[in-house]
């Protein structure tokens, strides 16, 4: 095991490196930082940088830890279902991303679009879903990082949870979305390099035959070497349904579409999705499945990846795994933080509190929000840890809480017949009924409602499916019955950049003076 000093050093080195890099880039940049630049990165990001950023945002601590856990538990079907089940949302998101570009070319958040497409109650409800998604994901990312730091270095888990957000909050506060993109690129490259090292060492040290024979010798070998594993399939179904919410309702993915050039918006998600597939697929195959095949004595499947990394390369393996995990935590954390900031600044501050705020004032508020939320997320992670809620539980339960908004949101963007009431009650009833079914099925299957009974695959699956069925039936059904039609063309010119709004305001003031 590494020392806790190593943990502190990793936090310090990466925090200082990315903050320094952001400051240097800011100084060398020819354009002045404005509120618009801070939240949209100038809407000029190319396909490949956007792809790298999407990969980084979608590579959570859970991607590295949980995927390996599925490989360790379910055999070869685990990595596949983790990768495929969480990759298709990114691929399908390309469709809605390009439609947002067409229908609201200058929007800052997807909620800004919802506010103009639907009524106030829909805007507020979707904002609730979006903030809940961002907050849960950020807390989960920090929690994953803190647990890994604690288990590999012995670093105090609470100190780790409070220090991790500091590393990405400072550079995000300085450089905004653009800084997040650059950090995302570097983090993604680093993750690929470290994963390739692990995969190569597995081949060189053990070879595939040893692992195969080991898997065949396991008592549960029936499911370890086939895709026809029922637990694997159940996990896959939860993964597919649950992850729709965490992509479609998460502002950080919309933000990448908003920040991309028109030509890059859709392609980036296709390239990003296909490339992202390789990360959980490889790590879970080479660390999770291999750990099972080699018969390592692992009591907690969630810890299979770091333990296998240590088995492969000793302390160097642990450090490499920690660096990779920390890269994933940093980039997702920064992406979520900029997403929360954008929602609060655009949909609360500029919409309701100070609509005429200057660019300078908006930028200042953005930075304050980024800093405050970054620090608050660390505290929330500590609270979650204290309640005893783990990474796997939050990962699988998330869909029940946030997926209610997926169908209403998607049809609102793509279908002119989607209605205010249908989408509002669909999203709300979807969430309420999903939680109810989840609680009831946990009680019926285990006779009690505890974190353990709620974490069972069947209860999670019933809850997740109910959310989709109820929200879909209500929102689509109401649209079909009411036969209303919305004119998307009319809303196109209603979106303005912060800079344009400021110019218009200045002109209006000048006219008044004259």
């Amino acid at each position, binding site marked *: 095991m590494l020392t806790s000093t190593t943990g502190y050093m990793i936090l310090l080195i990466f925090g200082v490196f990315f903050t320094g890099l952001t400051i240097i880039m800011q100084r060398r940049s020819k354009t002045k930082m404005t509120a618009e630049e801070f939240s949209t990165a100038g809407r000029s990001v190319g396909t490949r940088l956007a792809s790298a950023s999407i990969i980084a945002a979608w590579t959570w601590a859970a991607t590295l830890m949980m995927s390996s856990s599925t490989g360790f538990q379910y055999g070869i079907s685990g990595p596949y279902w983790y990768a495929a*089940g969480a990759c298709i949302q990114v691929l399908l998101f390309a*469709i809605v991303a390009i439609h947002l570009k067409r229908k609201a070319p200058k929007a800052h958040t997807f909620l800004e679009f919802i506010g103009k497409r639907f009524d106030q109650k829909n805007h507020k409800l979707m904002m609730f879903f979006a903030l809940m998604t961002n907050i849960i994901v950020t807390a989960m990312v920090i929690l994953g990082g803190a647990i890994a730091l604690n288990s590999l270095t012995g670093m105090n888990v609470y100190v780790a949870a409070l220090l991790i957000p500091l590393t990405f909050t400072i550079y995000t506060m300085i450089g905004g979305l653009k800084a997040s993109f650059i950090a995302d690129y570097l983090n993604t490259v680093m993750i690929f390099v470290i994963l390739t090292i692990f995969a190569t060492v597995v081949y060189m040290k053990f070879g595939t035959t040893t692992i195969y024979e080991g898997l065949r010798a396991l008592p549960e070998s029936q499911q370890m070497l086939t895709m*026809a594993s029922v637990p694997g399939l159940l996990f896959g179904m939860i993964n597919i349904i649950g992850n729709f919410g965490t992509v479609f309702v998460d502002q950080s993915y919309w933000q990448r579409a908003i920040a991309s050039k028109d030509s890059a918006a859709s392609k980036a998600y296709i390239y990003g999705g296909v490339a992202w597939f390789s990360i959980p697929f490889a790590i879970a195959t080479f660390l999770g499945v291999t750990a099972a095949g080699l018969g390592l004595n692992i009591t907690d499947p969630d810890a299979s990846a770091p333990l296998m990394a240590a088995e492969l390369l000793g302390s160097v393996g642990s450090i490499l795994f920690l660096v990779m995990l920390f890269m994933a935590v940093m980039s997702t954390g920064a992406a979520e933080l900029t997403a929360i900031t954008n929602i609060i600044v655009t949909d609360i501050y500029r919409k309701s509190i100070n609509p005429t705020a200057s660019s300078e004032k908006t930028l200042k508020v953005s930075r304050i929000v980024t800093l405050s939320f970054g620090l608050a997320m660390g505290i929330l992670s500590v609270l979650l840890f204290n309640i005893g809620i783990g990474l796997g539980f939050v990962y699988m339960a998330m869909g029940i809480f946030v997926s209610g908004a997926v169908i209403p949101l998607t049809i609102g963007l793509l279908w002119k017949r989607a209605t205010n009431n249908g989408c509002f009650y669909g999203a709300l009833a979807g969430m309420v009924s999903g939680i109810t079914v989840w609680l009831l099925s946990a009680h019926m299957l285990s006779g009690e409602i505890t974190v353990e009974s709620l974490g069972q695959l069947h209860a999670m699956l019933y809850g997740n499916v109910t959310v989709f069925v109820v929200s879909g039936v209500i929102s689509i059904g109401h649209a079909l019955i009411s036969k209303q039609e919305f004119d998307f063309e009319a809303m196109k010119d209603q979106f303005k950049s912060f800079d344009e709004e400021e110019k218009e305001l200045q002109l209006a003031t000048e006219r008044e003076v004259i």
Partner: protein
Amino acid sequence: MEDKQLMKDAKMCTRWALGLTFILIFAFPGTMFLTGYNYTLQFFKGWTYLAFAWLVIAGLYISIRPWVEVYLEKRQ
């Protein structure tokens, strides 16, 4: 003109997104699940080679392409 291009892109990415989703979620795992196929050593080897190759190609693509993109933009 710009909207026409976006519509064209939307059609193309819809086809790719739906096509890949069908292959990844229904076609491949569906066939494997229904046949109940158990991996032979050869198939397992091929599976791990696929995971490795996919990782290396995706890593190279993601690492190098942004630089190529910057270079091409500068040349233009």
